[in-house]
């Protein structure tokens, strides 16, 4: 054997997705998170099938009934079945959470990667805008929007999209700043690759993981924000069964029929827990270093 020919052994092929799947199955908390998220989405899709009663039909004969076999979670002050309303309410939560965070990730990734990749005055300008946005309380933006266009789910979605993007922009900018000096990026550039190729083939795939984690946890936060606005009467309008609005209505009857407020609260808590657990598991599954998150 000549010395230049390496005495090479070949490692068995590595399938990164299989490896990640194995990591996920070993992660109990992550699995629980996924189970909750799958359940939530399933419930949202099948709401019409699953809900035993209509969410808006009032039945004044059955006002404020305690949980029983016919009404698993009792009824509210209009005699509507709380269980059915929670099931329908999941649609609003999932819709608001996914659409609003999806929009903000889109904005954030675009602005963050342009700032990080091109640098210079563009970066300085975009970073100032990002920092300003970062400092805006989302609830204030939402209230302002409500004042301008009136209450509604769209206000919540736009408010989240306009404020949350800043954190994703910061994350991706930091990642790209770090990655663009990697030698393999220079190697691709030395071959005449376009900015587009470099961004989409090398920078995004390596930079996106922390954003995925932040977005997962962000969905939980967006759902809470929707509930908060609903609680203040500025989110989804009656008779739409937003969990926040349900809790808001329930406050008046807190001591007569506490189930009206307890069950939507529990639903929301479990949902947020699900997204947080899954987000934490992603850190492990996607091999993200802890320090890139904060």
């Amino acid at each position, binding site marked *: 054997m000549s*010395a*230049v*020919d*390496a005495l*090479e052994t*070949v*490692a068995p*092929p*590595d399938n*990164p997705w299989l490896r990640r799947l194995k990591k996920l199955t070993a992660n109990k908390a992550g699995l629980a998170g996924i189970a909750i998220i799958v359940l939530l989405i399933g419930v949202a899709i099948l709401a019409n099938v699953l809900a035993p009663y209509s969410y808006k039909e009032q039945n004044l004969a059955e006002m404020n009934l305690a949980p029983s076999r016919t009404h698993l979670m009792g009824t509210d002050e209009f005699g509507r079945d709380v269980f059915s309303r929670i099931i329908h309410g999941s649609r609003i939560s999932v819709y608001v959470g996914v659409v609003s965070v999806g929009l903000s990730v889109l904005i954030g990734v675009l602005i963050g990667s342009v700032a990080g990749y091109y640098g210079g005055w563009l970066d300085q300008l975009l970073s100032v805008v990002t920092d300003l946005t970062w400092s805006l309380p989302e609830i204030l933006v939402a209230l302002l929007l409500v004042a301008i266009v009136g209450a509604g789910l769209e206000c919540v979605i736009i408010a989240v999209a306009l404020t949350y993007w800043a954190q994703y922009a910061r994350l991706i900018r930091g990642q790209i700043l770090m990655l663009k000096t*990697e*030698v*393999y990026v*220079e*190697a*691709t*550039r*030395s*071959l*005449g*690759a376009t900015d587009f*190729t470099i961004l989409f*083939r*090398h920078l995004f*795939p*390596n930079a996106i993981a922390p954003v995925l984690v932040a977005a997962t946890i962000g969905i939980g936060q967006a759902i809470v924000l929707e509930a908060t606005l609903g609680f203040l009467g500025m989110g989804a309008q009656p008779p739409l069964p937003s969990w926040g609005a349900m809790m808001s209505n329930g406050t008046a009857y807190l001591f007569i029929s506490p189930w009206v407020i307890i069950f939507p609260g529990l639903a929301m808590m479990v949902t947020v827990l699900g997204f947080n657990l899954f987000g934490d598991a992603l850190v492990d599954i996607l091999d993200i270093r802890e320090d890139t998150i904060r």
Partner: protein
Amino acid sequence: MSPLVQVRHLCKHFPVTAGVLHRTVGLVRAVDDVSFDIGRGEILGIVGESGCGKSTLARLILRLIEPSGGQVHFDGQELGLLGKGELRHLRRKMQMVYQDPHSALDPRNTIHRSLAEMYQIQRVKMTPEALNDRIAELLVMVGLKPEHGLAYPHQLSGGQKQRVVIARALALSPAFVILDEPTAALDVSVQAQITILLQKLRQTFDMTYLFISHDIALVDYFCHRIIVMYLGRIVEILPAGLGLDAPRHPYTRLLMDSVFIADPEKRKTISVVPGEARNAIGLTKACVFESRCPYARPLCRQAMPPLVEDAEGRFAACHFPLGGNGEEQRMARAGR
């Protein structure tokens, strides 16, 4: 035949800023007025310590960074005058092998994908079968197996990764390859493998190399001709293989004297008085090596000596070169 690469008065100056207003307070002359030719089929070595500008020079030649002045001609074409498309086409002919194989490969791509990308970026039309065959051929060429194509970088050792980086550089059959410390990050036993592989490949494919290193013994072994750089300047150009008596420039002498030979019978006497390269900031007129030069004289403080050819065809940028006539001249002056 004309040289493959001609470098003329190449400069790269970085401004040094200070204060809140980022006022420019000086210039780092990373590469300062550098000119040389690389002949077809030649292995030219560049040796120098950290901060001497050798890596900046490599990137200037490939036009990965814009020069502050000067030109690079490749195969008769001036790179600065080429359009984007022309430059991209020309990039096939000039490639680079990097020092650190760990960061030279995208961790998310398999080896196959990293190699296939070369053809995609250069828009080389190939059937998938032809591409697979070509990649297998490349891997075998650098001493790996076709199956390594399925691996991810983290599954390979440092030496194996460097072989992949070499395969990537060779993918488009370049005429000119810059080797930027290709063995510095590797184990001693693997360094030699890679050095020998690079020699073999050059003979097989008739390439021209620019070999950058801090190791003067390695450069002396690997190259035909050696350029010695100090603080952004060429201080000497000498043919390889001349041995320890060759240097004309005191800095080359110092470099050679600093190399320890792996033989306890050939121990050296080294001065332990510190002397180190300072940064190339400021606009001093003095010779760049003046502050460390054991032979420095008043003239050295007043003017930077130009790189001149002596009677024997050797180039040195020194007012009082060592050896040959210069030695006599120096002794005469010292004795006066």
